C-alpha cells in the first residue's frame, strides 16, 4: 500500500515538473530563435522577485487572480465553462464602487454591504447565463461571451456623467468611495508598499472552496454532476438546479475578484481598472487543476511572470522584450495540460500492466495447480 502511494505522489509531481521544464525549454528556443540569450531573462526575472516591492505587487496581483480562478474552477468542477468571469468581475467592481461612493455606513456595516453588492451583482450576471442554460438550453460558453460584451456597454452607460460618472482630472471614474468602505492593508514602509487587506479574503475563499467541495453534500453533488451527469441524476441530484446554483456561486465569487484592488488601493472604478482578468483566471484554474492549493501556486506563478517581466524592457546592458512572459504563460498552460494527460495515461498503463501481470501470475498458478490435479 505504501509503495502505491509513493508512486501516486511521484506521478502527481511529475506532471507539473515536466511541464515547467518543457515550457522553459520551449521559451528558451523562442529566445534563441530571435537571437537573444536563452537564459538571462530568467535570471533577470528571478532577481526581480527578490525585491520586496515586487513581492508585494506579486502577492496583491495573485490575490485577485486567485479569487477569479476559484470562480472559474467551481464551474469546471461540474463541467460548466464560465468564460464570463471577466464581465461578472468588472460589473461587480463597478456596482461596488458606485454603492461605495453613495452610501456611507460605519465600517463594520459598510464593508460587508460592499461585499454583498459585489457578490449579488456577479451572481446576477452569471445567473442570466445560468437561467438561459437551464430553461432554454443556451450553451453557457456563448451566453457568457455575449454577457461579457454587454457588460462592457453597460459599464460604459453607468459611467456616463449623467448617471454615476465623475470626472477626475482626465480620467472618467465612478467617484471616490466613502472612507468607511476602505480596507486597510499591511503597510510595509513607503518604498515597499502595502499588501491589500483583502488578500486574506482570497485565503478564506480558498479554504471555503475546499471545505464546500470536499466536506459537504452540496460539494459532493457538484463533483458528481461534473464527473457523470447520468450517475448524479440516478442518485437523485437535480442537474438543472445544480447548474443554476453553481453558476450563481461562481458569479458571486467572480464579483469579489476586483475588491482587493478596489477597496484596498484605488477606491474608484475607472477605465484603467484591469480588464481581461477573467480570461487569465481560466488559464490559472487549469494550471492549478481546480485544486485550491494548485490554483494558489498557479496564481503566484502567473503574478510573478506579470510583475517581474516589465523589468526586462529596461534591463542593462541588453534589454529583452517583456512579451516573452506572455508566450511563456501560453506555453506553460499547453505543457501542463499535455503533460498531465501524458502522465495520466502512463500511470494508467503502468497500473494495467501491473494488474495484468498479477492476473497472469495468478492464472499461471491456477493452471499449474490444475495440471497437477490432472496429472494425479
Amino acid at each position, binding site marked *: 500500500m505504501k509503495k502505491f502511494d509513493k508512486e501516486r505522489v511521484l506521478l502527481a509531481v511529475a506532471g507539473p515538473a515536466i511541464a515547467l521544464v518543457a515550457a522553459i525549454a520551449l521559451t528558451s528556443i*523562442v529566445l534563441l530563435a*530571435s537571437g537573444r540569450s536563452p537564459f538571462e531573462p530568467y535570471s533577470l526575472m528571478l532577481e526581480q522577485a527578490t525585491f520586496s516591492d515586487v513581492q508585494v505587487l506579486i502577492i496583491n496581483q495573485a490575490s485577485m487572480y486567485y479569487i477569479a480562478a476559484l470562480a472559474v474552477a467551481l464551474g469546471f468542477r461540474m463541467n460548466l*465553462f464560465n*468564460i464570463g468571469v471577466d464581465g461578472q468581475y468588472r460589473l461587480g467592481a463597478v456596482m461596488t464602487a458606485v454603492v461605495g461612493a453613495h452610501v456611507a455606513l460605519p465600517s463594520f456595516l459598510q464593508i460587508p454591504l460592499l461585499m454583498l453588492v459585489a457578490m449579488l451583482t456577479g451572481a446576477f450576471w452569471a445567473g442570466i447565463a445560468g437561467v*438561459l442554460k437551464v430553461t*432554454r*438550453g*443556451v*450553451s453557457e*460558453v*456563448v*451566453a457568457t*461571451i*455575449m*454577457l*461579457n*460584451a*454587454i457588460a*462592457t*456597454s*453597460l459599464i*460604459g*452607460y453607468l459611467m*456616463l456623467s449623467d448617471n454615476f460618472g465623475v470626472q477626475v482630472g482626465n480620467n472618467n471614474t465612478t467617484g471616490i468611495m466613502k472612507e468607511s468602505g476602505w480596507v486597510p492593508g499591511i503597510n510595509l514602509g513607503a518604498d515597499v508598499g502595502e499588501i491589500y487587506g483583502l488578500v486574506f479574503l482570497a485565503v478564506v475563499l480558498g479554504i471555503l472552496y475546499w471545505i464546500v467541495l470536499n466536506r459537504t453534500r452540496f460539494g459532493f453533488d457538484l463533483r458528481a454532476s461534473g464527473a457523470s451527469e447520468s450517475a448524479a441524476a440516478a442518485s437523485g441530484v437535480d442537474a438543472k438546479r445544480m447548474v443554476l446554483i453553481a453558476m450563481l456561486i461562481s458569479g458571486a465569487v467572480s464579483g469579489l475578484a476586483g475588491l482587493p484592488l478596489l477597496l484596498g488601493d484605488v477606491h474608484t472604478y475607472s477605465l484603467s481598472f484591469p480588464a481581461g482578468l477573467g*480570461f487569465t483566471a*481560466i*488559464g490559472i484554474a*487549469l494550471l492549478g487543476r481546480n485544486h485550491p492549493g494548485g490554483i494558489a501556486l498557479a496564481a503566484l506563478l502567473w503574478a510573478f511572470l506579470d510583475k517581474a517581466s516589465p523589468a526586462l524592457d529596461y534591463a542593462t546592458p541588453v534589454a529583452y*522584450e517583456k*512579451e*516573452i*512572459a*506572455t*508566450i*511563456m*504563460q*501560453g*506555453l506553460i*498552460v*499547453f505543457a501542463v*495540460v*499535455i503533460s498531465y*494527460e*501524458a502522465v495520466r495515461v502512463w500511470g494508467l498503463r503502468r497500473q494495467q500492466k501491473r494488474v495484468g501481470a498479477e492476473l497472469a501470475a495468478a492464472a499461471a498458478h491456477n493452471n499449474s495447480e490444475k495440471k497437477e490435479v490432472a496429472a494425479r
Partner: protein
Amino acid sequence: MSTVTVAKPQAKKPGKGSRRMSLPVLLLVIAGVLVLTSVVRLITGADGITSTGQMSTALRLAVPIGLAGLGGLWAERAGVVNIGLEGMMILGTWFGAWAGYQWGPWTGVAFGIIGGMLGGVLHAIATVTFNVNHIVSGVAINILALGTTRYLSKFTFENEPGGSSKQSPQIDSLGTFDIPGLSSALNTLNEKHWFLVSDIAGLIGGLVTDLSPLTVVAVALVPATWWVLWRTAFGLRLRSCGENPVAAESLGVNVYKYKYLAVIISGGFAGLGGAFLSIVASNVYLDGQTAGRGYIGLAAMIFGNWMPGGLALGAGLFGYTDSLNLRGGTTNVHALILLLAILLVFGAAYLLWKKRYTPAVITVVVSALMFLWYTSTNEVPKQVVSATPYIVTLLVLSLSAQSLRMPKADGMPYRRGQGK
C-alpha cells in the same frame, strides 16, 4: 444487394426530419421580416436601417465573423471544439499584415491562412494526438497567439517606417469593385424610399457595391463548404468522425487523419478571417484587432445549428447589428425597438394559438414595455447600440437553442481502437 436498397431510404429519413424549417417556410419568414422592416422604416423615418451603405458595411463586418464561424464548423463537424479560433484569427491578422506590407496583399492573404493553420496544427496535436480537453487547448492557443504576435511585432514592425510595436506599416489595398450598372441602379432605387422595393434594392445593392475580391471569395466559401462537407465522400468521412468516430474507424476511416485535416482547415479559415481584418477591413495590423470576433464566429456557428447556411445568416445578423454602431446607430436602433415590439406581438399571438398562456402574457408585457420605450424616447444611448449585436445574438439563441443539434461526438476524446 437487397440490404443496400432497403438501407438507403431509411438512412435518408432522419436527415429530412431533422431539418427544422422547410425552404418555403423560411423564405416566408424572411419575406415577412422584410415587409415588417419596411413598415417600421416608413413609420419611423429611419431610412438608414435598409440603406445600401448600411448593408454594404454589414457585409464587410459579417465576413470575418462568417469565416471564423466556417472555421468552427469544419473543426466541430469532425468532433473537435475549437475555441482557439480567436487565437488563430490573431495569427491571421499578424501574418497577413507582415507578409502583406512587404510582398503585396495577396501574399498577405496566403500568409494569413498559413498563420491560422499553424494555430490549427497546434490545436490538432493537443486535442487529437494528446487528447487534451479541447477548450483548455483552445484557451492556451488564444494566450499563446497573443503573446507570440506581440513578441514578433517588436522584432518586425517596430523597426519599420510607419510601424510600431502595436501597429504594422500600411498594406496596399486589394481594391474594390462595383457591378457596373446594377450597383448604381439599385442605389438610386434605394434612395427613392419606396415601400419594400427600396428595402430590397438596399439589401441587394449592399451585396454588390464596393466589393472587395476577398469578400467574394469569403461568400463563395459558404456554399463551397456545404458542397464539400455534404456532397463528397471526403466530407461524409469527415462528418462521420464528429458523429461517431468508432463507427467511422470500423469502416476504415482514418479518424486521426480526418480530424487533423479538419482542424488545420479550420485554422486556415480563421486565419483568412484575420487576414481580411488586417488587409481589407483596415489596411494595417493593430494589436487587439480581432476584438473577440473568433468567439462571436463560434456563437454564429452554434446559432446556425452547425450548418453553413445558418451560420451565414447568423454572421449576417451580427454584421448588420454591428454596422449600426458605425452608421447613425442611435436613431436606427431606436427604430429597431419598434420592430422588436411588433415581432413580440406576433410571438405572443403564436404562443396564444399554441395555448401557452403564461409565456404569452410575459411576451405581451415585454412588448408593451418596448412600445413604451419607443414612444417615450427619440433615440437610444450609444451604449445600447454597441451592445445590440450581443443582445440580439443572445435573444435569438434563447429562442432557438432547444432545437439545435450539435455533432454527436463533438468535444469527446477519441483514441484509436477504443471501440474494440
